[in-house]
């Protein structure tokens, strides 16, 4: 399936996706969209894991399992994050990240 596609393509794609996520993380104000950016970042990492696994160590399954665990962690993270976000919304009636700055100084 991946014949003719060098590993670099996957890696470059993942890098672009990763930095898009970073950009989103840095610029978005809404906490939920920040969460989405994080999902992008996690996904790009997954792609890298799988690409490395497939191209460089095809006899092993480590990359795949890592991806699997990352997905699991991402799911947990999303659940907790969203519950926190909702809680924040309840307290502050906003989920704008710039307004949630109680933890300063």
């Amino acid at each position: 399936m991946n014949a003719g596609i060098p590993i670099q393509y996957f890696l470059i794609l993942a890098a672009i996706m990763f930095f898009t996520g970073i950009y989103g993380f840095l610029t978005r104000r809404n906490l939920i969209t920040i969460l989405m950016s994080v999902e992008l970042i996690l996904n790009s990492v997954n792609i890298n894991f799988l690409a490395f696994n497939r191209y460089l160590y095809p006899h092993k399954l480590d990359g795949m399992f890592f991806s699997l665990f990352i997905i699991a962690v991402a799911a947990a993270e999303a659940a907790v994050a969203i519950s926190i976000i909702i809680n924040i919304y309840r307290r502050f009636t906003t989920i704008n990240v710039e307004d949630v700055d109680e933890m300063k100084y």
Partner: protein
Amino acid sequence: MIANQIMFFLLSAMIIVFSILTVISRKILRAAIYLLFVLVSTSGLYFMLNYQFLAAVQLTVYAGGIVVLIIFSILLTSHISQRFEPAGLKKSMFSAIAALTGAILSIVTILDYKFEATAIAAKEVDMRLIGKSLLSVDYDGYVLPFEVISVLLLAAMVAAIAIAKKSGPAKTQSPTLKQE
């Protein structure tokens, strides 16, 4: 140009375009839908890499689980019609510069590095193997991370409930609310 290359570029283009749209869209629900597209395309890439199980997980967990969760929370917290203020120019400029620098750095590094293709035959990834590996305590076994992750999921579930529960001591404390 062979079909899988076309397929790859198509998926890549979708991922990149929708990623960018996700982070710049000014309507939050749209952003979530774009994210869904990205995730689906990513699972396509997994198929291409011949990890069907993972692709399926990706579809079910991400597309089916997380995105739905996100959309629900959007519905709980925002108006669908609400348009975001665009990020400040300075902020987005600097972020873009940083992200671009990082991207260029990574890409240059990737292109610099000579990846040595391996000659070892690929292992066939079937469900049986995955299941065995997950529960194996051998050299290739993943029982410990598996257990850890299951505890984590349980903890996350409890935590999510506990945090999101409406009442609790958090309410009784004198709230330092920022009510506008």
